[in-house]
């Protein structure tokens, strides 16, 4: 009964002082004087504006990455009580007192600090010695570029943290696989792997490369598991299912969760609304929602509408017409119909209003009850202010001569008959009798006579067209394209018979009442799609670089310069570490190929378990470097040195692994071994020395004299700022 009392209650605590010490120095190096400089440093200007948007709950769209990273930074702002009031306009601008600099920079700094003990854990879990593990952690600790990057409000250090966490938890998981599968510990690390992977992807898209690497290693391990005939089929199936759920399903769900929170937080309309569809905009508070609130839902004959192009490239715009006509003869000598121009206009304007007319009747008002327009109906579109009808005919468009000109028809009595009938084609209909709905329906207008489709060509017209965008009738129909699709944005039922009254009516704001809500998945997919397709203008940048510059650190980035002294912060790595890490990767690759070939000829230099350890270390570290580095060669965006940091971390992990391997297996005699140890110590000392020399450029705490700065410019390609007095 009371048997449990027969044994004393014992708590055994095992504290690895290595870990504690490493964490402590990691924290010290990253958190020391964190709030200095109290000024906007480099890309903080970029991330800062999004933090402000979060604080003010204003919707924004940033194509550079998924929202999790921005949200983490904003969390720092939230904890520090930031109200979002700061104008992020210039690098070097002094922070005002309401900006909690310390707490904004805290999360990246913590991630950077924790990466140090994690490096230790990873190398240890890979099966290498505590000495190698400590070496890896120390290299992470003194790597200047990592210090700089994690001490600022930037995302790379957080990305690196989750990359390492994913690898570490996978290693812990696969190590516990051998002893106790399906134990709580096994489940914990498995689930953590999945979560860390999706966090990495959620911070930057490049996180997906580490995710794929982990998935690949997991797949290989699972394949071995399938081959393990000591396990029953059911057990193998359980193993596979557990992995699939934790490494595929769970990350997807977590990724969706990021967007869910993102959309939950940002409910106010803001500066990027225009890029989104009308339906999305209407789901935000303020902005379009205020305008369209209470519009009638179903478009009827007699409705007054504005038509927005769904594609909205190069800018979102509305179908527009005005009194001016196409010039009789264009500059290149081609002729036009000289009828009224139809364009796409990127601003709200009374000339954007069109009336949907039934070709069979003359009235321009809505009947009571309204007769809704359905898919397949033939309609005419009457321009509200000029009462001319939308028309297209076999005349070449002004700037896209292969397509037809679209005009508002003027009868010049020159045997050019009006061709103003359009068939309504609702693209996202559910049935063929669907009703044309405001905002929700995406429609195409197919010209009845020529089967041309009303399309935004996106080319700005010359001065005669007031630089508005060209609209054409596309004859060469090559299937679906968003530039041929339009949706009703503003809508009201027309009531006035007379043109004068109608003009007044067009000027008045819309009214009545309906509510519409987009589902989360619809909002998510639209937002994700826009984020992936939004184009940042690829402006050149003074500090942009190419992937080839990175391996040997042939470039740097000046992050910040003190407004008066020459104290400055640079993203500049520890050259010794960079060069030796690259060298280690090369050595690893050569040794690996050598061993592989020898094994193929049945000459086993390494015992089996050592070989497997060596392969796994290479797959994760060299592989991690490769997947985080090589894809940049294919990317067309502007690249910077900091893009290399995730790859560099993996390289740094590989470095002690290779050194230990050389010491253990390639140094035959005791003498060689001691010599090698001495070399390693010397090398490490020099790395520390270099790190210390570059420290003023890493922390920016000390102003160096021009001659000292010149002395630090070890490579001609480094750009160190020297003030001219």
């Amino acid at each position, binding site marked *: 009964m009371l048997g449990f009392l027969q044994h004393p209650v014992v708590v055994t605590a095992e504290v690895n002082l290595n870990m504690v010490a490493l964490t402590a120095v990691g924290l010290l190096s990253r958190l020391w004087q964190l709030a200095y400089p109290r000024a906007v440093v480099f890309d903080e200007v970029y991330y800062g504006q999004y933090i402000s948007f979060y604080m003010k709950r204003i919707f924004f769209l940033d194509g550079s990455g998924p929202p999790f990273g921005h949200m983490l930074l904003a969390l720092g702002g939230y904890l520090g009580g930031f109200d979002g009031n700061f104008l992020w306009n210039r690098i070097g601008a002094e922070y005002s007192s309401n900006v909690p600099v310390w707490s904004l920079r805290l999360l990246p700094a913590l991630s950077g600090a924790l990466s140090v003990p994690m490096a230790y854990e990873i190398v240890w879990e890979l099966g290498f010695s505590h000495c190698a593990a400590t070496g890896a952690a120390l290299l992470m600790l003194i790597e200047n570029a990592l210090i700089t990057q994690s001490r600022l409000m930037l995302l790379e250090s957080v990305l690196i943290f989750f990359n390492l966490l994913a690898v570490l938890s996978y290693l812990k998981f696969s190590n516990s696989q051998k002893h106790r599968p399906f134990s709580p510990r096994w489940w914990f690390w498995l689930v953590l792997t999945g979560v860390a992977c999706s966090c990495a992807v959620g911070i930057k898209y490049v996180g997906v490369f580490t995710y794929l690497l982990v998935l690949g290693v997991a797949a290989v391990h699972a*394949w071995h598991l*399938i*081959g393990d*005939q000591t396990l029953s*089929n059911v057990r*193998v199936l359980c193993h596979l299912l557990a992995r699939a759920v934790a490494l595929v399903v769970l990350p997807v769900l977590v990724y969706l969760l990021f967007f869910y929170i993102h959309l939950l937080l940002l409910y106010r309309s803001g500066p990027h609304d225009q890029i989104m569809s009308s339906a999305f905009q209407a789901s935000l508070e303020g902005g379009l929602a205020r305008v369209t609130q209470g519009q009638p839902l179903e478009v009827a004959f007699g409705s007054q509408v504005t038509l927005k192009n769904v*594609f909205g*490239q*190069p800018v979102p715009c509305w179908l527009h017409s005005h009194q001016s006509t196409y010039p009789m003869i264009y500059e290149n000598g081609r002729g036009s119909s000289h009828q009224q121009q139809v364009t796409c206009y990127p601003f709200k304007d009374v000339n954007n209003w069109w009336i949907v007319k039934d070709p069979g009747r003359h009235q321009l008002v809505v009947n009571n009850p309204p007769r809704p327009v359905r898919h397949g109906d033939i309609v005419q579109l009457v321009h509200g202010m000029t009462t001319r009808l939308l028309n297209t005919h076999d005349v070449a468009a002004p700037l896209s001569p292969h397509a037809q000109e679209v005009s508002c028809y003027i009868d010049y009595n020159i045997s050019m008959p009006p061709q103003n009938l359009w068939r309504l084609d609702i693209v996202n209909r559910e049935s063929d009798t669907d009703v044309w709905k405001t905002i929700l329906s995406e429609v195409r207008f197919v010209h009845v006579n020529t089967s041309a489709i009303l*399309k*935004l*060509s*996106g*080319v700005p017209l010359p001065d005669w067209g007031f630089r508005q965008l060209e609209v054409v009738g596309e*004859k*060469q*129909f*090559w*299937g*679906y*394209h968003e*530039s041929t699709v339009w949706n009703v944005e503003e809508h009201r039922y027309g009531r006035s018979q007379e043109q004068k009254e109608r003009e007044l009516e067009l000027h008045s704001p819309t009214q009545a009442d309906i509510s519409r809500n987009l589902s989360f998945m619809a909002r998510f997919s639209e937002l994700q799609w826009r984020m992936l397709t939004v184009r940042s203008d690829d*402006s*050149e*940048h*003074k500090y*942009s670089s190419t992937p080839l510059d990175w391996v040997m650190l042939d470039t740097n980035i000046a992050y910040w310069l003190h407004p008066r002294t020459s104290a400055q912060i640079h993203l500049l790595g520890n050259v010794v570490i960079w060069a030796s890490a690259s060298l280690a990767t090369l050595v690893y690759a050569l040794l690996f190929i050598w061993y592989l*070939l020898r094994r*193929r*000829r*049945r000459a086993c230099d390494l015992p089996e378990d050592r070989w497997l350890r060596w392969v796994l270390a290479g797959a994760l570290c060299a592989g991690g470097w490769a997947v985080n580095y090589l894809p940049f060669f*294919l990317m*067309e965006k502007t690249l910077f040195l900091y893009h290399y940091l995730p790859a560099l971390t993996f390289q740094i992990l590989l470095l002690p692994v290779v050194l230990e391997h050389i010491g253990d297996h390639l140094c035959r005699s005791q003498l060689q071994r001691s010599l090698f140890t001495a070399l390693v110590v010397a090398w490490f000392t020099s790395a520390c020395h270099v790190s210390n020399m570059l420290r003023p450029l890493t922390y920016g705490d000390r102003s160096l004299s021009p001659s000292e700065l010149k002395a630090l410019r070890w490579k001609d390609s480094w750009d160190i700022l020297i003030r001219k007095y």
Partner: protein
Amino acid sequence: MPPAAGGGLAGSELRPRKGRCGSQAARAAGRDVTTAAATARSPKRPAPPSSRRFEAAGRWALLALVTLTSFATRFHRLDQPPHICWDETHFGKMGSYYINRTFFFDVHPPLGKMLIGLAGYLSGYDGTFLFQKPGDNYEHHSYMGMRGFCAFLGAMLVPLAYLIVLELSRSLPAALLTAAFLTFDTGCLTLSQYILLDPILMFFIMAAMLSMVKYNSCANRPFSAPWWFWLSLTGINLAGALGVKFVGLFIILQVGWNTLSDLWHLFGDLSLSMATLGKHLTARILCLILLPLALYTATYAVHFMVLNRSGPGDGFFSSAFQARLSGNNLHNASIPEHLAYGSVITVKNLRMAVGYLHSHRHFYPEGVGARQQQVTTYLHKDYNNLWIIKKHNSNSDPLDPSLPVEFVRHGDIIRLEHKETSRNLHSHYHEAPLTRKHYQVTGYGINGSGDSNDFWRIEVINRKFGNRVKVLRSRIRLVHLVTGCVLGSSGKVLPKWGWEQLEVTCTPYLKETLSSIWNVEDHINPKLPNISLDVLRPSFPEIMLESHMVMIRGNNGLKPKDNEFTSKPWHWPINFQGLRFSGVNDTDFRVYLLGNPVVWWLNLLSLALYILSASIFAVAVQRGVRLPAEVKGLSQVLLRGGGQLLLGWMMHYFPFFLMGRVLYFHHYFPAMLFSSMLTGLLWDTLLRLSAWSLASYPLARCVHTLGILSLLLGTAYSFYLFHPLAYGMVGPLAQDPRSPMAGLRWLESWDF
């Protein structure tokens, strides 16, 4: 059909014959199938020799039948329509260029167009047709030679596919199915009937694949004559594929992968000595790397030899290159070799289609930087392109005969004076008209006297101090002394005030890009001796390199515009949309490139089915399940043979997802060939498997035969339905119920 189906199951033909190579896997499979089939049906009855001879004859007859059908379909109505269709306007034109020997530029390597030109030349086409735009009538010009050549190669695809599948599966029905899919595919048919590069490219791809598969089968007899033959043939075909289009690279990758895994197996075979392995490696390097490289280079040698007259492609190439072309004004010209002070020069940008540094008597308009004289680049030769090199610190006339000649050296500080207006090339801290982050470049000063903003340092790329600057050959950079920026052209077109010439800026970003590198083209200096430009003639490797750079840049330049409909890679396998080859309206003769939907959708289904069945087998093998002998043989065929084909499909399809250039539907066709072969192999194997699993039922034997027959007939019937797409349609469009194609527009996106 009966001999095919019967032959497939008879088993006797599955046994490798004496004197032929047989792949080990397929052989093992064959043996298993044989024994299984034998035990299942006709226990221990060896086929009599006469029947074996009959089998062989039947096999040849079948191959002949397949080839004949293929040729019949490809050459049927080949002359229709008698006008230019689609890209014939390019490739026909380029064929004519070869006949006329005028130089042109194209983004594809030359072999395909050379062959077209050769075919035209041999068939009596004189190169006088202009090939202006699609729809132009050929009239009296002989175009059938060129079309016939392409159709011939296109028709060869079917027997090639037949042989590949036969080699991989050792099963006649599978090969026959494949042949039927390809013969009856309207897409392949259409693409083969016109003067295009695709039939040539696909021919080389398939031929390379066939020779690779054949040589794999010879693996048990290394260094024998057939082994060498197929190995070197693989190399030759690789060179052909790469020589037609750069996508030939994909088949090279596939062969490379196959070779690597082959070598890996050999390497693991401890019975082979290192010397033998060395021989194996050398043979492959010789046949698969050096031989193709030599042939590929040879096509370029021929290309440059044939095209020796100035033509529309000149402007894409550097000045030194143009000096080779007769009719170009640089040809046989003689100019002083080294730049000296006082020389009158033109400066050309190295970026393609940017032109010469230019200035004229017009100012930048109000509000665009400083109101000084414009400096632009201009593509045409003009007096305003002339500049005089002067020393930065003296304005004395260097052409004074009393003064010694002083050469311009790398690192010198110079001044460039515009000859017509006597203003200096100048830059300052004002933003450039279009590229706001760069500085404006202007012409400044009167009669050569300006200020220190007129000083430029001339630097030769990759050169140390003190060297002279060579005309044409030296790549130079002009660094502005005061601001440290580099003279470049942004390539943007200036508005009307700048006469739509291109913007010149001074870029503060010191990145080495072609747009900031220049070379000196014309050079006049009476004090210096002229040398013939032949001395500066680039060597053949340099020409090769340059033309490849230009081609790569040209390819990268083919970017889709925003609001254009472009074909996306995911459209292709689902046959989402075709390409209009000819005709739009109902009165036109319309040809529409569209895959036979029955074949294509079957391919799509088969891909999924293949992945499913292959992974089931792979998992079963990995789990150590003991499969019955026959099933094991079939699974080997599926995993090894099918794996090769799946790899081929992936290699020829997935890279397109990474490409930024404009893509078209016809890019999918090489992948489609692999996909069709996979379908043939898969269905044959699956039908055999189901026949085996139903072995206890009396109908089992018919399952395979009936399945193959119905697939063949179904494909043939669908071809009957869709053949007007390829052979041409006249009359109302398919929406119209009166049209013969009415009801066949299964997807709304097909517009025929």
